[in-house]
């Protein structure tokens, strides 16, 4: 008996450690597991509180569907919605509940209380638990979702009875080690009508939808998670093929720069930047309307495409056709790149939907196309997705997404006078997230208006501190070029004449 080897003692210690670490069950909901640092607490209860239409039921259904697809059956107990309606709703998100039910991976229990039922005397939930327990044992279910438990709890007119029954339900779930998710409505300003639930449960998730101007934004937040770390921030989420949470990951901070340069498309600008833009970083081209930001971005785009590096051009201000046509006047022909499919445009009206939907669509496009470089023309339009804060979050997340994927991100920003006087070249306060910033301005002399360019910053790279003149000719941007007759006037007028000339050049 004394001969307990050191090995077995060590093993016991290890077991002890293992058993004290909280096991987690992934939900399969895109982004949610990231903010939950792995998933829901295994064998424990999670409560999801939110207003109407915030996506609580979908969260529950997605969780069960994901688990069922991994051959771990579950039960969905619905107190409010009809099973048919749930099946239809899930189908719109691409989840076929009917198929999962047939395969035995899912059981939807219609537990809507009969609205005409009369209450006479006390009753309890033991019967319901016996029913669920019986069904769970039969199908081998490991997780249970109770959807809209408030409907059940409202059957009790006595808050103390209600609370006791809920304690009983909670204990029963823990005893049976079901990983459970309970959804409850919260209305108006009241955090949660059944607020004791938040104290009782091991994990509390809050979902809400709010209006900024005319745009709806949805947010999800983990309020509490016993025994685990989690992201306590509010995170945006949208509905696109189900629920998608868009966490701001920490990859941005851990990524080391590549230190490789890519040409800007202009040798002189490359020289100013000691070799060009840094690959896989974020670059800001800021300037007033007509200073040549789009031209600079298109020069870069064209040269990248000629090297067979894919470029995604996200335009919020002009159509693809307008950009391609306008650029011909500066000698930049994007048509071959478009035809070969190495250049792709993404055209959106900023106000057409919420910033979060823009973000997901843009990231989806990046993931589908896998561009080496992404151009956003222009982030000043992103304010129209909601507020400056919305634009800030959108651009921050986009910078993050591009860094994660190693894509160079060229952000254009149209400045107005107030931005220039405040010194914020990004307009929305993201300057500190930008690696390289170029400022393009007008300088008015008694004789003419000149364009000037300066490098405001270039992280991790030597760069020129000189302010240089530049002109836009039919050969694009020429830095330090002597002012000649064919200077592009400031506001884009007179382009047609030079465009005509250029068509010839294209045809050879």
């Amino acid at each position, binding site marked *: 008996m004394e001969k307990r080897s050191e090995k077995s003692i060590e093993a016991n210690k290890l077991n002890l450690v293992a058993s004290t670490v909280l096991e987690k069950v992934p939900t399969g909901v895109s982004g949610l597991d990231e903010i939950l640092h792995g998933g829901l607490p295994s064998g424990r209860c999670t409560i999801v509180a939110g207003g109407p239409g915030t996506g609580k039921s979908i969260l529950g259904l997605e969780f069960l569907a994901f688990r069922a697809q991994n051959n771990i059956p579950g039960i969905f107990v619905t107190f409010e919605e009809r099973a048919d309606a749930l099946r239809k709703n899930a189908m719109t998100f691409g989840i076929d509940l009917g198929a999962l039910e047939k395969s035995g991976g899912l059981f939807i229990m219609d537990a809507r209380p*009969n609205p*005409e*039922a*009369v209450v*006479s005397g006390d*009753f309890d939930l033991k*019967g*319901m638990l016996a029913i669920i327990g*019986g069904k769970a044992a039969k199908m081998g279910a490991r997780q249970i979702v109770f959807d809209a438990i408030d409907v059940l709890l409202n059957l009790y007119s006595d808050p103390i009875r209600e609370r006791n029954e809920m304690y009983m339900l909670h204990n029963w779930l823990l005893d049976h080690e079901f990983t459970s998710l309970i959804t409850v409505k919260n209305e108006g300003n009241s955090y949660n009508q059944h607020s004791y639930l938040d104290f009782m449960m091991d994990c509390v998730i809050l979902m809400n939808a709010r209006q900024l101007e005319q745009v709806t934004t949805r947010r999800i937040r983990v309020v509490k998670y016993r025994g685990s770390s989690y992201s306590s921030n509010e995170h945006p989420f949208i509905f696109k093929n189900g629920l998608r949470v868009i966490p701001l990951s920490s990859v941005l901070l851990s990524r080391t720069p590549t230190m490789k340069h890519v040409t800007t498309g202009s040798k002189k600008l490359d020289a100013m930047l000691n070799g060009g833009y840094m690959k896989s970083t974020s670059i800001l081209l800021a300037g007033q309307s007509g200073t040549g930001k789009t031209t600079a971005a298109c020069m870069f785009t064209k040269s990248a495409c000629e090297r067979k590096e894919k470029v995604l051009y996200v335009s919020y201000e002009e159509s693809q056709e307008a950009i391609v046509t306008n650029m011909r006047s500066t000698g930049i022909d994007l048509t071959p790149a478009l035809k070969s499919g190495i250049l792709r445009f993404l055209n959106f009206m900023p106000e057409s939907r919420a910033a979060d939907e823009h973000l997901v669509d843009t990231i989806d496009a990046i993931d589908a196309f896998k561009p080496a470089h992404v151009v956003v023309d222009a982030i000043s339009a992103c304010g129209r997705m909601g507020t400056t804060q919305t634009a800030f979050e959108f651009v921050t997340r986009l910078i993050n997404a591009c860094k994660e994927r190693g894509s160079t991100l060229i952000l254009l920003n149209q400045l107005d006078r107030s931005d220039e006087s405040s010194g914020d070249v990004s307009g929305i306060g993201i300057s500190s997230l930008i690696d390289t910033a170029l400022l393009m301005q007008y300088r008015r002399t008694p004789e003419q208006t000149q364009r000037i360019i300066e490098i405001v910053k270039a992280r991790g790279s030597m760069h020129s501190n000189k302010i240089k003149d530049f002109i836009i000719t039919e050969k694009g941007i020429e830095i330090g070029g002597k002012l000649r007759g064919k200077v592009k006037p400031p506001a884009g007028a007179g382009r047609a004449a030079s465009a005509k000339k250029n068509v010839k050049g294209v045809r050879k």
Partner: protein
Amino acid sequence: MSGVNKKNVGQPCYFFLLFVAGDEPNSTLAQTNLSLICNKHLAGRFNIEIVDVIEDFSTAIDYGVIVTPTLILMKPEPRVTIFGNLNDAKKVLAALRLKEETL
């Protein structure tokens, strides 16, 4: 439990389903209360079927039962559902459409 009696052939027979959870207090109470009410007001023309959800959960699922005790009046139509231990006899009688004077 059955109280079918030849005297009551002309009058409708009441058929009840009572869902209980084992010998849990409210379930036991409901059984007692229901037989008291039936014996007093429906003597000879009632039929009670007890379903213990702990033994038979699938019948409970079929009838959409979520709390126990739950009483369902199957016949005469329309169906009536009553939650609770049935300790409020007046309320139960009213729900079963049984008027005091006809009793």
